[in-house]
């Protein structure tokens, strides 16, 4: 109920957001990140974007070749856009929350700290 209430309470802000797209990192420089975004028309070459980093930060595990979720801002895809990891596979746990929660209960149901 608490989680649902939180979602509803912040819904107006969420509705104003733009639609995210999947992008792949080409290069990471000190002040910007270059990504490619595939076009809906597969025959057309992917769009190359340069995301400035003054308004966002990068998760430490992101590297050239990584697939990311690109959230455009109201100002467009380059200024204020956010790049977020997809959090998939065994090793990806950007916030570390899942791992900590698992460790937080030393003897979880039945398995008693089963899993890594």
């Amino acid at each position: 109920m608490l989680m649902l209430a939180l979602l509803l309470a912040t819904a107006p802000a969420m509705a104003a957001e733009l639609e995210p797209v999947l992008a792949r990192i080409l290069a990471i420089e000190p002040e910007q990140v270059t990504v490619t975004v595939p076009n809906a028309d597969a025959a057309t070459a992917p769009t190359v974007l340069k995301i400035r980093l003054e308004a966002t930060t990068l998760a430490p595990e992101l590297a050239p070749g990584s697939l990311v979720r690109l959230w455009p801002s109201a100002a467009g895809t380059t200024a204020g856009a956010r790049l977020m990891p997809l959090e998939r596979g065994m090793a990806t746990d950007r916030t570390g929350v899942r791992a900590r929660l698992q460790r937080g209960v030393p003897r979880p149901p039945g398995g008693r700290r089963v899993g890594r």
Partner: protein
Amino acid sequence: MTELNMQAAALSYRLFYMMKPATYLIIFSAFVLCSGHHALVAADDTFYLNGEFSTGQDSNPAQTAKAHALNFADVILNAAQHLRLTSATVTVGLDGWYRDYAATDALSRLTLHTDWERELAHGAGLLTVALAAAAYRDSLVPPDERDELAATVRYDHTLTARTAVAVTGETRQLAYLHAAELWAGRPGSEPRNASEMTRQRQPATAPPPPPPRSATNQQRTDWRNSVALDVSHHWSPTHASVLTLTAARNASPVISERYAQRGIGAEMRWEPLAQWALTFNLQWSQLRYDRAPRQQERTDEQHAVGVVVLRRLRWQSRDQGTWFCRVDWLDSASTRDEHSFQQQITSCGLGWTF
């Protein structure tokens, strides 16, 4: 002198069994790396090192009906080498976790793992095959000490830029270090496996010696098979939720430790301010010990709630560090009262990626 020799022999025995699963994985890791050597010439490899320190209080570290709170300090170190091959990524990693409780109790876990990942469906899918070997040591409840070997297959599929699903299947061998005394199953008698007997003691006292071997004792090796389904949705750049369904079955030579488990969990992440994040999670799980003799059958229902507040720390345009505080509550209600317990863990700490 004889006692010294016996202690040395016992230490050698422990080291041998502690190293055994890790040795298997080292051999496998070397095989993986050697077999992919031709592709490594042009590989882009990265090294990842993460450390974390936290301290807090555990209201019931032994998870017994009579709780005794203990303060603790956690140290976590994760190291991983990613090798990006032409069509896949191989990761070899070492994870260490050490929890030092007040008094003389401590828990530790050392895991060596190898993950092989390959993108499918033009990048939308990610197939992961992972092998892991772990050594778990527990001076609080010595009968829980064990070595583990696990094989995991996971498939992640990004349906849209907002929604993704993941299916995970795992089989895990749990080789307990101390022999378990098998319960004979006489009507009206009490369970007599070593784990249950040890849980009745006070957790803050000095750890007792491992249960003695006898003709009726038997090495205990469990096999736990599990499947899980994750569905995640990103509502906005600052809101995300994950729904998880799980099912597992544990096969054990100790009849009273055989169980079937099912569970559901939900997690919501919210970033109300830049660099700040809040995570709420709820879990429900049911364990049915349905293979035990009628007198020992029981069903446990567990409800867990967790709240985490974290602040990411920026260093040179990267989120290199995390400051966090968290509270986890667990209520485990059993049809047999002596197995019911509550637990609350509160801790704060700092993590850093090097």
